[in-house]
């Protein structure tokens, strides 16, 4: 975690050196070579790893504040060989490093969806880090939304009023069968760019930092989330309950507030 903070600082510094503000229009120079070094050092990354991973995103960010992104694996997780982490990088967002999914070998085939803010024309990358440390990448280009769609929230008052409210949504599962599940938490996910009229100040960044989804106390998905994640963070995933038990979602936000919900299966 500390390493990640240093890396983020390094990225900001490098971007400054390049004279590229995070708020600038679509950068003329691709940022990826810089980001790659900042996040992964000199480790090789296998590109177009279409035999391992699929990333789905709309061609155009219809609503800049809510862009659904899905990552699927084509090779089932096994205890010997599994995807340990999936890093999501959105090159041209104010903070490109958007999420890191820590995944359990028990997940089977990975099928995870979330929703991101996409400010401008950008590559969105999913980088799988295997348990042997090797890195494999797939990416999609997403066009910016047109017109008045901004990554700002639509109704800050409503979002704040239901802060921390959670849902775990799924069909009645059958033991041994994969079941699609959605964990969603209401949170304004302030990215530090919103303004509060009453205090005439920018609202400090206040966002969900970590979502841990566990089954019978074993973590299935633990995701570190950043400010690219949309208001009301949502994680949709597939897992196969083999025994009856308790599915639990624990949320921590950047102010240390915690929210939790569970469901018996």
């Amino acid at each position, binding site marked *: 975690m500390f390493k990640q903070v240093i890396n983020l600082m390094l990225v900001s510094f490098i971007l400054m050196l390049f004279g590229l503000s995070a708020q600038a229009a*679509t950068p003329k120079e691709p940022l990826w070579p810089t980001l790659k070094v900042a996040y992964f050092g000199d480790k090789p990354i296998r590109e177009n790893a279409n035999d391992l991973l699929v990333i789905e995103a709309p061609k155009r960010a219809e609503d800049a504040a809510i862009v659904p992104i899905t990552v699927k694996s084509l090779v089932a997780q096994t205890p010997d060989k599994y995807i340990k982490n999936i890093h999501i990088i959105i090159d041209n967002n104010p903070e490109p490093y958007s999420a890191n999914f820590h995944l359990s070998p028990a997940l089977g085939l990975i099928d995870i969806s979330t929703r991101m803010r996409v400010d401008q024309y950008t590559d969105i990358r999913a980088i799988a880090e295997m348990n042997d440390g090797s890195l494999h990448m797939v990416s999609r280009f997403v066009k910016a939304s047109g017109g008045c769609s*901004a990554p*700002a929230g639509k109704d800050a008052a409503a979002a704040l009023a239901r802060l921390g409210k959670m849902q775990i949504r799924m069909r009645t599962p059958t033991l041994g069968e994969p079941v699609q599940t959605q964990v969603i938490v209401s949170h304004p996910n302030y990215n530090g760019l919103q303004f509060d009229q009453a205090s005439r100040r920018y609202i400090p960044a206040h966002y969900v930092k970590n979502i841990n989804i566990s089954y019978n106390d074993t973590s299935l998905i633990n995701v570190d989330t950043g400010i690219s994640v949309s208001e009301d963070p949502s994680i949709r995933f597939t897992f196969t309950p083999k025994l009856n038990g308790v599915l639990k979602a624990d949320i921590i936000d950047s102010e240390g507030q915690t929210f939790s919900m569970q469901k018996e299966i």
Partner: protein
Amino acid sequence: MKRFFGLLLLTVSSINISSGATDYTISELGEGIYYHQGVHEDASAQNIGAIANVSFVIGDTCVAVIDSGGSYLEGSYLRKAIKETTDLPICYVINTHVHPDHTFGNAAFKIDKPTFIGHSKLAAAMEARKTYFDHTFKDILGSTYTGTEFIPPSITVENNKPLTIDLGNRKLELTAYITAHTDNDLTVFDDTTKTLWTGDLLFIERIPALDGSINGWITVMDNMLSLDLNCIIPGHGTPAHSNWKEAINHQLHYFNLMRDQIRSIIANLGTIDEATKSVGLTEQSNWELFDQYHRRNVTASFVELEWE
């Protein structure tokens, strides 16, 4: 000169402000109400961002501007049209909501030192979008953007507390709404002619774009139907006269249909992707720019209705 212009306007229903290659047409609706009708396109340097309806209303002592245009340049054309129509001062610039096509012309009126008026949540919405709009629209609008500033209201209107302003024997009633098209929608009602400026609470011809709350917007439209009106000037599209209720019902139909279909997808644990691929597609032929905005409306509605 003023009288001459007045006479001219009795016989000619529109005036052209020519500047370079662009013709900027102002139409007179009657009794001191003038407007420029925006084109049904996305904003661009070619159309100078003039995609929304912008208006001015003349009383005995004052002029009020209702939405200032989609670029500094459009604002300056609108101002020129006003100056060619009347010698009365521009006392008020009213913004019906935060979107660029309704506010980017504000700075062109600074020289008149008007009172800027908007919803009590307008300034916050402007601040939240400022950085994004600035870097995006500099690219989209090119040189027509030059001079654009984000000018917040100096007087605000709160939900349930309408504000009346007087242009000299002509009262305008300003009403603020719950979150609907945006969280900062404002309408203007001219008592003299029973004309309502809806801002983007009503789109005619052009597909509505949701940047607020589908439930709020449906409620606001339902309530609007019970008003006593002669005319509506929508945020986009041709002003409606005796057919104004039809126009509201047309838009209501679109949102009600979309809401019903999305609710059933959510109840069935469906995804945003499923919704954008199926919801409301029968409505395509009813709206201009459907392909550019419909999926976005579905997406925005979906994440709201998920919390019902």
